[in-house]
């Protein structure tokens, strides 16, 4: 797995590279600005890019813009975006073109190395990762009683949250200590209640769920 890191804080950049190299992953380049990052993507043809949201010059959403551009230049490039805080608008911007091979995580998750590496692999394999915090915020903003969400049972809401985070059926079953079959049943029921087209592929489910959660509150 060839990795490029784009992070403007030198200490954090080196820390990330050190962590990944210690895990015998192949960090082929690091970049401190969106420009350097795009050059590195062109030059080193990486499989995965780890990108900070806030980068120079304005420190707003340069990372997201650069990630979208990198994926345009190199279709199939997996991108894991790291953010210091949850900005749901950035997540929506990032996932607007689909969720395959995309991830959005809070920076502090990197410290839980095993989970972070698992997320990185999932994204590299074309899956999706969304920080639980993003999902929690989206769900919290949808507390209106008149929406279809209100019809979901507590268990179904839980499953919906995990689905939005990008977990597949087996992973959801493991988290909730239930059987695959039970999860499958819940998911069918959720899709029916929310009137979403049923789909088994995790990344498409993420897009659908995000679109539902995000679109509903407008």
């Amino acid at each position, binding site marked *: 797995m060839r990795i490029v890191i784009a992070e403007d*804080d030198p*200490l*954090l950049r080196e*820390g*990330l590279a*050190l*962590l990944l190299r*210690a*895990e015998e992953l192949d960090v082929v380049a690091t970049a401190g600005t969106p420009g350097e990052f795009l050059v590195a993507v062109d030059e080193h043809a990486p499989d995965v890019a780890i990108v900070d949201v*806030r980068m120079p010059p304005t*420190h707003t959403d340069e990372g997201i813009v650069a990630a979208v551009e990198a994926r345009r230049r190199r279709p199939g490039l997996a991108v894991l975006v790291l953010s*210091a*805080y949850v900005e749901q608008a950035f997540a929506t911007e990032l996932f607007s073109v689909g969720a395959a091979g995309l991830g959005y995580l809070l*920076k*502090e998750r*990197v*410290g*839980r*190395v095993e989970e*972070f590496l698992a997320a990185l692999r999932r994204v590299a394999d074309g899956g999706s990762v969304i920080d639980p915090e993003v999902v929690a915020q989206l769900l919290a903003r949808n507390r209106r009683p008149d929406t279809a969400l209100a019809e979901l049972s507590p268990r179904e809401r839980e499953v919906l949250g995990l689905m939005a985070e990008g977990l597949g059926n087996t992973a959801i079953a493991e988290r909730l200590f239930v059987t695959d079959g039970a999860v499958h049943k819940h998911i069918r029921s959720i899709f029916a209640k929310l009137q979403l087209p049923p789909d088994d592929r995790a990344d498409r489910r993420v897009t659908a769920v995000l679109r539902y959660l995000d679109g509903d509150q407008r």
Partner: protein
Amino acid sequence: MAYVRGRVRASVDAVEHLVGGLGTALLALGALFWAVVVAMTCLVGVGLRLAPGALRAVRSVADRERARLSRRGTPIPTPGPVPEELRDALRDPFVRREVGWVTLHSITGLVSGLVGLALPLYALQDITFPLWYRLVRPEDGAPGFFWWRIDGLSEALVVGVLGVGWLLAAIGFGPALARFQSWPGRWLLPPPPGVDLSLRVATLTATRAAALDAHAVELRRIERSLHDGTQNRLVAVNVLLGAARRAVRRDPDRADEILGQAQDAAEQALGELRTVVRGILPPVLDDRGLAGALAGLASSCAVPCRLAVAVTVRCAASVEATAYFVVAEALTNVVRHSGASRVDVAVRREHDRLLITVEDDGRGDADEARGSGLTGIRRRVEAYDGRMTLTSPSGGPTRMHVELPCGS
């Protein structure tokens, strides 16, 4: 005794007031003269073009009088610029009242000002006359009374007594005269009833908006420095700790090395947190003002520091805090990186900008890309719509120039 002291102080104040009024009365006379000339040329058409200018001149004199009266009593708000179009200008309620004021004040203000100034001068001259009456020829008479022949000390003393009379008149009538002089302004220059409220609301809205704006800028700056500095450091600590935990079993030596890096990062986080906290509002600014706070910085600087602060009025607290932060960071950089033997810090105010220059004789080659100090300064300055320029050729000297808008 206290009564006498009070009276004397009141009459000295009155003289000062009368002299100021005399100044605006002379200006008013000039403006009136110009307005009359323009009005007369209006009859032949040429004046129509000049009329708005003349009205602006009247307004600027009136604003001076407003400022003068505001310093000693109820503040009189200024109405803003005269409307561009002559027709609108003539309809403006302020303009009409100002034309009335300029006519009245150029007469009453001038006369009362001259009398008010003359009384104490006569008093001084006549009271001291017995001391110097020998210097004038007897046939030249007493001061102001050339027909009054002064032949000896006794007659000179009578003039001295007259001087005491002038003095009593100055003390007795001075304050009343000053009140009389400011009466046309107090009557005609405040906003007419009805206009007052809207004007005041407009001023309040503007100042409130500006205050809120400055507040938002300040919050954004704090948010930024917490996110991009402290939080990033802590994330790095977290990442390194994660890496160290993974390394403990495989390679304890490596783990120790990583833990060392994590500790460095934690120390940096503490340092940046300190900077952020200090930058919110350094307590020393409140206690000693900008000049005092900077003097403290300069004296505790490891490199000899010469400080020149020419700022008489206080700026907004957030601007002073920024200026303080800039100088503190710049001096830290000089000590850490420049190898300089001296550093000059100059802070002055030019119109609505605060200008800060820090120059050292070190080795130069300061680079914003390395070291977060300079980036921090730039970010903070730009958050205030200020400007920072840095020249640092290899071999020195390094010169940093910062401009901060500080309102009026």
